[in-house]
């Protein structure tokens, strides 16, 4: 008799909990319908927001002239990323660096380098310059600074492109590079520099 009572109490508890569970589940399912735009009438609204996405990429991120020397008597060697090599034996590089705005926010683009000409090449007479241009006209809808001119690049950030757009086909910049290597006073060996782009949402 006693065990039957215990059994009854436990059974009632189980049924009660099951009903509570059912109520909770039904309520939750109704919430899901409302929040996902489930149509309870003949029209429905679904709201969403597109997140801000600032994404800048070097789609061409390497310039490597290989191994070479300054032609004796030339005084200097000038290396350009338009394929021109003057006074040196390095391999021609015909592709500039390319920066693309792959996000959905227009952005100002600034550049700086990990070192200046002296730090890069190892001579105070060396030059390390960039020439930033729009790959497609109108890419910098906010205007360009020092467009299509050679400017020394160093560790100080400098703004080159105002408002680089996100529009497909009008969202890229060319960054051409020029290096001048003096014939004398330059240590033999590998030289490297990293150009860093900084994007700031307009």
């Amino acid at each position: 008799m006693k065990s039957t009572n215990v059994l009854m109490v436990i059974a009632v508890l189980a049924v009660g909990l099951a009903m509570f569970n059912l109520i909770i589940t039904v309520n939750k399912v109704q919430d899901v319908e409302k929040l996902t735009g489930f149509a309870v009438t003949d029209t429905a609204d679904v709201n969403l927001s597109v997140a801000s996405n600032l994404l800048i990429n070097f789609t061409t991120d390497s310039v490597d002239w290989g191994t070479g020397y300054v032609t004796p008597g030339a005084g200097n060697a000038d290396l350009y990323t338009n394929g021109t090599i003057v006074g040196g034996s390095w391999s021609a590089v015909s592709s500039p660096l390319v920066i693309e705005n792959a996000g959905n926010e227009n952005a100002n683009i600034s550049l700086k380098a990990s070192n200046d000409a002296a730090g890069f090449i190892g001579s105070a007479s060396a030059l390390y310059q960039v020439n930033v241009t729009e790959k497609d006209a109108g890419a910098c809808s906010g205007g360009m600074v020092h467009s299509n001119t050679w400017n020394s690049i160093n560790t100080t950030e400098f703004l080159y492109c105002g408002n680089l757009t996100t529009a497909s086909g009008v969202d890229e910049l060319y960054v051409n590079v020029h290096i001048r290597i003096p014939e004398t006073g330059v240590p033999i060996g590998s030289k490297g520099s990293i150009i860093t782009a900084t994007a700031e949402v307009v």
Partner: protein
Amino acid sequence: MEVRREKVVVTLLLITIMLSVSSVVVTMNLDTGQPQSSSVIDSGNLNGNVQLVVEEPPMNIIENQE
């Protein structure tokens, strides 16, 4: 025999209650909120590398120059 059967039933009911409680907890924690779009700020590949190697001119070229 009957006592043993009752014990089995009690055990099964206890298991049912535990499962029911677990189910309630899981259901109550179900996230039915509107999906939140995170603000994505991805810097991408921000670095371009410029490199070369400087070597001595070959001796025959130097001699020709001289």
